[in-house]
């Protein structure tokens, strides 16, 4: 009766299911970051030294790459969020759901790839 996590993934759903899984994961991911971000920003109350020490942390390459991932997560979540909103407010579009998803993916690729490369340019140094 209870469905095991693996069974969620072994069900052969199509676009809609993958969109949903990604939307969930990115949503949670971004939320986690947001919470962390609130904490670090709070350091600003302790003055420049404290804050700059926090920022120092973010400058580590691991975090830089993480930052790129974060940007991707936000971007995907945002675009797919728009897809969901379109579907919700104009149910007529539901017949074109797969096209919308394709649009989300394309738009995501078009925006994200250059952006990611741009953001990762530091790696070249």
């Amino acid at each position: 009766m209870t469905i095991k996590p693996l069974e969620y993934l072994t069900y052969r759903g199509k676009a809609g299911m993958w969109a949903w899984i990604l939307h969930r994961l990115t949503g949670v991911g971004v939320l986690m970051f947001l919470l962390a971000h609130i904490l670090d920003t709070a350091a600003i109350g302790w003055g420049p030294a404290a804050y700059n020490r926090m920022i120092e942390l973010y400058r580590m390459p691991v975090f830089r790459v993480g930052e790129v991932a974060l940007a991707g997560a936000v971007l995907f979540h945002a675009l797919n969020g728009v897809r969901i909103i379109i579907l919700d407010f104009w149910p007529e579009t539901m017949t074109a759901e797969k096209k919308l998803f394709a649009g989300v993916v394309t738009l995501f690729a078009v925006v994200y790839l250059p952006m990611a490369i741009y953001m990762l340019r530091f790696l070249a140094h």
Partner: protein
Amino acid sequence: MKVTLKIKRFNPEKDEKPWWAEYTVEAEPTDRLLDALNAIKWYQDGTLSFRRSCMHGVCGSDAMLINGSNALACKVLLKNLGENIKVEPMRGFRVARDLMVDLEPFFDKYKQVKPYFITHSVTPEKERQQSPAERERFDDTTKCILCGACTTSCPSFWANPEYIGPAAIVNAHRFVFDSRDEGREERLEILNHRDGVWRCRTIFNCVEACPRGINVTRAIGEVKKALMFRKL
């Protein structure tokens, strides 16, 4: 051609946990999966249990998990399944035996949405009038055969068996958008419940699974929209 079927079996009477049985069947590519299941039951292993009746996708008996997605065994042809076929019972309901699941909770949810015509006004002598356009408005959802493929393909339902599920919503939709029906408010109220339409996260597995080609998610979306405009 020869096909191999891996079937998930479980008989609570004697098995402790589910196990996989393997059968090889000689069949035509244009045979239905149900033909193969029948061939097993009638000529190889009589203990294999599943439901079936009409053989052409109108009675809703044989929804099951076929190669990882829900479908009616009588509506998929072997040629579209490859030579190794995996068959399991639908997910999310108690397995009664082999490919049969306990459908009582499914029908209970269906009954919750008051799936019957409600009117308070006087009945005319002849028919109630309805324009073809008004009739068309809910045509899609009148097709439902209550097979359960949609509800048991829905991750929201797997996560939360309290969710009333797409099948019940489809059947509510059929009345909510029927110009002759007068039970709209009561039904919308039921669907507005926390385990009603709001549990749907537009995953579309239901649409892919529905053997009647009903755009289930669209029906759910229309109900959500109706609820939204009713409250605002």
